[in-house]
Structure formats: structure tokens, C-alpha cells
């Protein structure tokens, strides 16, 4: 089997055993990117030189017997919303075209310290606003399963890169499902950690109280390994949690044995049934049955406030985003557009012209919505109310977690839709996040792993597992168990069933 199809854990073992070098691995992935990314468009920027230099340094460390980490030398792609010193960081927007950050985000700094060569920056919906990556100012990313379909969003680039074997690992971010939903529609694994579990320093903020960085991988164990590299307290992020990291890789390995006796699994009645594609629901139900076979006890739980989650999210998130995006004003960095027909523009004129030209429609939509929601006289009715709904959602989760150790649902209501299909209907687009949003509102961790292909269209379906805050290890345990059982049924990973891309070297 080509190196490209191996998991990161397998690559790490191979590197440790001297069966392959990081330079070879990195070059192989760069070759794959060159071969298929014209069609997939997962990457906005590829840094061949930097990646190979890092790979060479990794090989030197291995030769000296001093690897920087377990994943030293395993290449990775990074969503273009995280600051990378010396590499362009556009957030999928024209307003940051050509911006080269003078600093590394903490996550990137940790990846570098752990020795992972960074292949490049991946495509995304502009400023993480979207569920399809169609709102990127640089063109959409295409789902490797069917190039006419969306790869999910906002982190479609990272998920597609991993699904197309262009990278064994990637970094994503999740504010309302932007790691988990792309994971679901591309047949990959995506995790959003407990809020505060992974540093946001250097993550260009969309909604500060909701955003989290997380791993994008092909296996649950890979996610755990990557989580251990990037996670943990960061003094530069006041919202990061000052607690020791959980033993995630151990939890994944334990779970892989397939024994879930004593584990109570809660099925959230509001997240499923009507509004969910039949095939999605079917695969979900079948997966739940597998958990029972593994010894888990199923309980039905109800979280009645979830019907308000989408509305609360689409008030809180745009409000925070409208403030976060105010800094893009042509004064210090990024795009600067002078207003036409105005020979002597004021600073405000230049700000206006730049923001009008530099932001896409979805971003403008959310800034306007957020500005309105925060405006005097409306704050209590909108933002204030939404925060109260947030409390109700947290309380629903608390009550549910009193009855169950983990909660489960389909990750998204449908499989990957066609590019262009939902672009004219923002609200229809927002509904993609209905199952993922509650976890962001409550700050609890969530994992999506592949549950199979929907019978009606042969496209990947995602299975979501949720745990209480700081219970990320439970996700790894239950996720790994389910993954083991499913892969047993499939005779391998789900991605083995993906159609081969033209020219693919995998």
C-alpha cells in the first residue's frame, strides 16, 4: 500500500522503524497534491520548500535518536485561518490576500516544535462563515468522493486534503460544526475539543466564545495523537483551560478493543428523524445497533431547547464576528482600496471602499446581522436573549449527561449536496449545522467519524459523539470502538471505497 493511504500512526511507526524518511513522505504528499489538487482545490498555498526543509530536519533528529515527538516527520496541512509566520494567511478572503503574518499561532508553533512538516494552507469558507467552502474568495474545494459536490465547510479544504490523501493529517477549526460536518460529508474523522482545550492564539477569530481548533484525520487514533500535540493550556489565550491534557491516545487504543460494557449512550431525540435524509438516519441507527453489540446501554434523551439552538447561534456568532472583523480596515495590513471618483478620501472612505470590495456576500450578511443584533435597543432582545438560550442548552446537556456518558446523533442532516445547490438560500445552508451547533454553544467536545455510505447516493455519512466538558477522552474511547466495529464490517477504512481521483498516486 502506498504511504499515502497509511494512517499517521502507521507513518509514525514507519519513521521510527527507519522504513521511510520524512523527506520521502513529504515529497510523496507534495506529488499527490500536484497530481490531484487541480481538481480538488483543497490548498490555497503549498510550501514545498518549507515542508521539505522541516522534513530534512526531522530526519536528522531521527538519525540522532532525538525525535521531537511521536509524530515527528509526519506531514500536515493547516486551515488558512491560523496564523503561520512567513506563509500567507488569507482566511479564504480577498481582504487578506497576500497577508504574511509576522508570528505563528500557538497550534502551529506546537506543530513545528513537534516536528511535523507543514505542507501548506487549506481552503475554507471566507472567515469560516459557511458550511460548504463555496464562500471562499478563491473558489470552492471539491469533494473527493464526487468533484461536483461540496466537501462541507467551513473547513472543506482540510477535510478534502485528508480524504484525497494529500495529507495524512490536517488542522481545522470548528465554530458551529466546521470540522465535524466536513468530516461527515468526506468520510473523515473530525473533532472539536472542549472549549478552551486547544489554544486560540493565532486563530483569526470568527466567534470567540464558540471557536475551537481541532484535528482532521482519517482515523480516531490519529486524531488523538494530533490532539495530544496541539492541545493544552496556553498562557497567551485567557480562555484556555489550565488542566493537564487527557490521555487521548490511550483512550483510543483502549476503545479499539471494541468493549463498551457499562457505557451509557444517549440518543438525542431532537437530532434526527424529520429533516434528516433517510440514508443518513439509517446508517446512524445501524451504528447505534453496533454500539449495543459492543455492550453499550442505549437511552433516549430529550433536549427540548435544541430547537432554538440554530437561532441562538446565528445571533451570537454574527454579533461577535461583526466586532472581530472590524479590524480589517486597510489601515495596517491587507487589502486597501481607494474609493472611485474621490480624489481626497478620508480614512473612513478608504475603510468603506476596502470592506465593500474585500468582503464576500456571506461575510457582509453576517456583519450586518451582528451589528444589528448588538445595536442599542436590540441587544436585550437578540444577543442577550440568545445568551440565555445558550444557558438553557447547557442545562439540557447537563441533564442528559446525568443519564448518559456520551450522546450521539447524525453529524449532519444530509450527505454532500451539489456545488451551487444551496447558495441562493442562506437559511437552507445554515440548517446543515443544526446537529453540530449545540456542542459549540455549550462548550462541550464533539467527534464525527464515518458511519458508512448512504444507500441512495453512495455518499459518506457522519456519526457524531458528544461528551461533557473535559470528557474528550470518552469521545476517543467510544469513537475508536465504533470505528473498529465498522471497519470490521467494511473490511477496511471507508475511504477505501472512495472513487480514485484522476492521476492520484495513492
Amino acid at each position: 500500500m502506498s504511504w499515502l493511504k497509511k494512517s499517521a500512526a502507521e507513518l509514525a511507526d514507519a519513521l521510527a522503524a527507519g522504513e521511510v524518511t520524512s523527506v520521502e513522505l513529504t515529497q510523496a504528499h507534495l506529488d499527490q497534491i500536484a497530481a490531484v489538487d487541480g481538481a480538488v482545490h483543497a490548498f490555497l498555498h503549498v510550501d514545498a520548500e518549507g515542508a521539505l526543509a522541516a522534513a530534512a530536519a526531522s530526519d536528522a533528529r531521527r538519525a540522532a535518536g532525538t525525535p521531537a515527538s511521536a509524530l515527528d516527520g509526519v506531514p500536515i496541512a493547516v486551515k488558512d485561518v491560523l496564523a503561520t509566520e512567513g506563509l500567507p494567511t488569507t482566511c479564504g478572503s480577498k481582504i487578506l490576500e497576500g497577508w504574511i503574518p509576522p508570528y505563528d499561532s500557538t497550534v502551529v508553533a506546537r506543530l513545528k516544535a513537534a516536528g511535523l512538516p507543514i505542507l501548506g494552507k487549506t481552503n475554507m469558507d471566507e472567515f469560516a462563515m459557511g458550511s460548504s467552502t463555496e464562500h471562499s474568495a478563491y473558489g470552492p474545494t471539491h469533494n473527493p468522493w464526487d468533484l461536483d459536490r461540496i466537501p462541507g465547510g467551513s473547513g472543506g479544504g482540510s477535510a478534502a486534503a485528508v480524504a484525497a490523501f494529500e495529507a495524512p493529517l490536517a488542522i481545522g477549526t470548528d465554530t458551529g460544526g466546521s470540522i465535524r460536518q466536513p468530516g461527515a460529508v468526506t468520510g473523515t474523522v473530525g473533532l472539536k475539543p472542549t472549549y478552551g482545550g486547544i489554544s486560540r492564539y493565532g486563530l483569526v477569530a470568527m466567534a470567540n466564545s464558540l471557536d475551537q481548533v481541532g484535528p482532521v484525520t482519517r482515523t480516531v487514533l490519529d486524531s488523538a495523537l494530533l490532539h495530544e500535540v496541539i492541545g493544552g493550556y496556553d498562557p497567551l489565550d485567557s480562555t484556555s483551560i489550565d488542566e493537564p491534557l487527557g490521555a487521548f491516545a490511550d483512550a483510543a487504543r483502549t476503545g479499539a478493543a471494541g468493549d463498551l460494557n457499562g457505557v451509557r449512550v444517549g440518543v438525542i431525540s431532537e437530532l434526527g428523524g424529520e429533516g434528516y435524509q433517510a440514508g443518513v438516519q439509517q446508517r446512524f441507527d445501524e451504528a447505534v445497533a453496533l454500539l449495543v453489540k459492543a455492550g453499550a446501554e442505549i437511552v433516549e434523551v430529550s433536549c427540548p431547547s435544541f430547537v432554538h439552538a440554530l437561532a441562538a447561534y446565528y445571533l451570537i456568532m454574527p454579533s461577535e464576528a461583526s466586532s472581530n472583523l472590524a479590524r480589517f480596515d486597510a489601515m495596517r495590513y491587507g487589502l486597501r482600496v481607494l474609493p472611485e471618483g474621490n480624489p481626497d478620501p478620508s480614512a473612513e472612505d478608504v475603510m468603506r471602499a476596502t470592506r465593500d470590495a474585500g468582503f464576500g456576500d456571506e461575510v457582509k450578511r453576517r456583519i450586518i446581522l451582528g451589528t444589528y443584533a448588538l445595536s442599542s435597543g436590540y441587544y436585550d432582545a437578540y444577543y442577550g436573549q440568545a445568551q440565555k438560550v445558550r444557558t438553557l442548552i447547557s442545562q439540557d446537556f447537563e441533564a442528559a449527561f446525568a443519564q448518559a456518558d456520551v450522546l450521539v446523533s447524525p453529524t449532519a442532516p444530509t450527505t454532500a449536496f451539489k456545488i451551487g445547490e444551496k447558495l441562493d438560500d442562506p437559511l437552507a445552508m445554515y440548517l446543515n449545522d443544526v446537529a453540530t451547533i449545540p456542542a459549540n454553544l455549550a462548550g462541550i467536545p464533539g467527534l464525527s467519524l464515518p458511519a458508512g455510505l448512504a444507500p441512495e447516493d453512495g455518499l459518506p455519512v457522519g456519526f457524531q459523539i458528544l461528551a461533557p466538558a473535559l470528557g474528550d477522552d470518552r469521545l476517543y474511547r467510544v469513537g475508536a470502538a465504533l470505528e473498529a466495529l465498522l471497519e470490521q464490517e467494511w473490511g477496511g477504512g471507508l475511504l477505501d471505497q472512495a472513487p480514485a481521483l484522476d492521476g492520484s498516486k495513492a
Partner: protein
Amino acid sequence: MSENLIAYDDAIAAFDPAMGLEVHVELNTNTKMFCGCAVEFGAEPNTQTCPTCLGLPGSLPVINGKAVESAIRIGLALNCEIAEWCRMARKNYFYPDMPKNFQTSQYDEPIAYDGYLDVEVDGETFRVEIERAHMEEDTGKSLHVGGSTGRIQGADYSLVDYNRAGIPLIEIVTRPILGAGEKAPAVAKAYVATLRDLLLGLDVSDVRMEQGSMRCDVNLSLAPKGSDKLGTRTETKNVNSLRSVERAARYEVSRQATLLTEGTSILQETRHWHEDTGVTTSGREKSDADDYRYFPEPDLVPVAPSREWVAELKAALPEPLREKRARLQADWGFTDLEMRDVVASDAVTLIEQTVAAGTTPQAARKWWVAELTRRANEDGVELTELPITPAQVAAIQALVDSGSLNDKLARQVFEGVLAGEGEPDAVVAARGLAVVSDDGALGEAIDRAIEANPDVAEKIRDGKHAAAGALIGAVMKDMKGQADAGRVRELILEKLA
């Protein structure tokens, strides 16, 4: 007073002023409010910045614990309640000197609130109520180039220096000061002066108005005498000295009274004070409904100072100002009137420091309150802005005490130090001001005087010692004042005995 404005005294006879003061204090922490950047004044532009205070995409704030402590101490010294739990908030508006286009401040949850500060004007005590004191960050500094006034109007371009962006500020807001009548401007000035002394005593800021580490906005409205409704208020900025506080307030009283008398309503706006011309001009229209879309800062966790910590800080506060002044007055042996003058001249700390350097209180008072205050008024600067230090004053007085200088010569040394000629010793040497104590030189001068005034000398020989005055005068003139008159007299009488 320019333009045809009603004189202050007439204005204040017809209207009751309500004044409010907003004072911004730059804290003397080592680093900025939300990042580790240095805060030194006067560094090269944009050299004390980082991703956080530049508001670069992805940057995050981390709150400065020392700033929180200073905020609490200020609140306690102002007799405020200290919040058990409060948050920072975002104040959203666009301006190039604000990197994030929002200021991280506090909105409806200030860390300190409901306090007061007693101030004295002409022996009368006024209690200024403090509505709140809250934490926030400073903005960058704009330099407008090309226009004639240095302001944005008429400028060709603007430069922004972000060194100042992110420096911790405490904003202290008073409740309307009512019932002060014609004394309102003086009360305002006294409030700012007293507040400044209090902050100096806490060592939380160097409160130098001329450097911008303490800034004052003056809010003022007028109501017809006897009315209990508040009028429309204006906010006046660019009030950069204690004297400006009083002058700007008096000007606004006249201006508003003139408009109201004409039947014109007052525009609720921000005005700009011009120290050189003594007027306020219209700035930007300020509406209370300036919509800053405040919401709690989601990148920071709430500030919840424990009651134990607050009690510790309270116990460690320096002596309250009132008590301190009473103690100093007693120590120094000043009368009430003398102490009042000291306070009015803003010389308390200066005298304290001069006494600490070895001078007697009365001597210190003489120099600071009489001599140097006059000089400061002439030069149009604050007493603290004069280029002379308490140590230097003490040194000059020490020279007088030792007989090296007399009073007249001492004044010349003061002149020299103020002119930047150097330390007192250096000025004495360079200008050759020392009293001549060499009896030989004195004797020669006395001989010359006796020779020039034989009849006066004769009278003295005859026992009319009072006549010595004329000879002493002649000798002093000869010695260019550099002689001790007492010693000259002694020597004259010896010679002519």
C-alpha cells in the same frame, strides 16, 4: 474674552452650572493592559508593539494583573465599592488609531463605583461624588501633518503611532457636581488637583497632564437659576493642565450663557479647548446615543477580586489625603491661611519633598508659594512644570543658611536654575554669586566707601552708628550685593570705632 460673550460673573448670576469630570489616568505598570509590551514614554514610533496591541488577526488579550490591582486601590482610595465580579466589554467604533476598531473597556460592570472625593476651595469643603472608575486600554496616537493647526482639519496626511495603544487606563467619572455656583470651575480644578495628589500618593501613575498620563474632559451644562432640570451638556477635551480645567469651565459657562440668553439652544457636542486663545471650538457632535454596541469581551474571563484581597489592599493604602494635609499642616506649623495657599498653589508635595531634603517648612513655603508660584503664573505653566526640583530649592536654601548666599543672590540662583544653567552650585560658580566672606576684600571695599563718604564716616566715629546704613549700601553696591550686610556693618563699626 473674545467674541461678544457674557462675562463670567454675569453668566453665573443668571445660571446654575452642573459640571462633570472624566479623568483618564495612565497607569505606571511595566507593561501594557493586555500584552507584555513596554510602556516607556518617548520611544521611537511603533517600536513597542506586538500582535496583540496591534490587533493583528488572531491575536488575543491577557489581562495585566498589576493594572487590576491599581484599579482596585484607586477605587478604594476614592471610597468606592469594589465589584465582586465584573467583566471587560468591547466598545465598538472605527478609528485608525484603534487597531481592533473596538476598545476593550468596561461598560455596565465597572470594577469600582459609588465613591467620593472631598475637595477644598477657599476653606469650604465640597464632596465630589464618584460614579465609577473602570479599566480600559489607551488608543494609539495620531499625528496630522500638513495643516496649520496640527489637527486633522486641513492636514495632508496622518501618521499613527501604536506605542500608546494598549497602555492601561483607569477612567474616573464623577456624578454631576451641583450647587457649587460661581465656584464650580474652581471646584473642578480643585478636584483634578486633589485627585492627582491622591494618585501620586498611591504610586499608580506619574499623573503628568503635560505628558498625557492624566487627561481631563470637562462636561458642563447650565440651567436657569432656581431650575431643577439639568441643561444640555457639552464635553470639552484637550484640557491639558489644571489651569485649563478652570479656564475652560469658565469659558463654557460664558459661552453657554450667551447662547441661552439669546434663545439659542445648546448643541450636545464635544468641544476642543484652545489654551492659547482661551476658547472652545466645536469638535464632533456627541450624542448620548453614540451606539458602541457594547458586549462583554469574550476573550477574557471575568475579574472577580476576592474580598480578602480587597481588604488587604485597603489595609495597605497610604494615609488619606485630608488627614495627610492636616498632619503636614500641624508638623509644619502653618496657619490655616498659609496651608490654604499651599494647597491652592498646588505645592503640598513639592514642599514635602523640599522639607525632606533638609529645608525648614517656612523657607520651603516662601520659595514655592511666593516666589515660584509667581514665576509659574508668569510663564503660564503649572508649578510642577517649572524646571526646578525640590532638591535644588533645598540646596539653594542651604547656601542661604550657611551664609554663602543672601536672599537677593539666592533669587539670582533661582533664575539661573530655571534658565537651565545647571545645578545651584554650578550657577553660583558660573555667575560668581557667592557672598564674599573674605574680610580682607570686604575691608578694602569698606575703605573705598569711607574715602568716598568722609562726612558719613565722621558721624560714625562720633557714635552715630545708625549712619552706617549709607556706608553699608555703598559697600554692597561695590560688592555687587555679594556681601553679608551684617558682617559689613560689623567691620565698619570696628574700623571707625
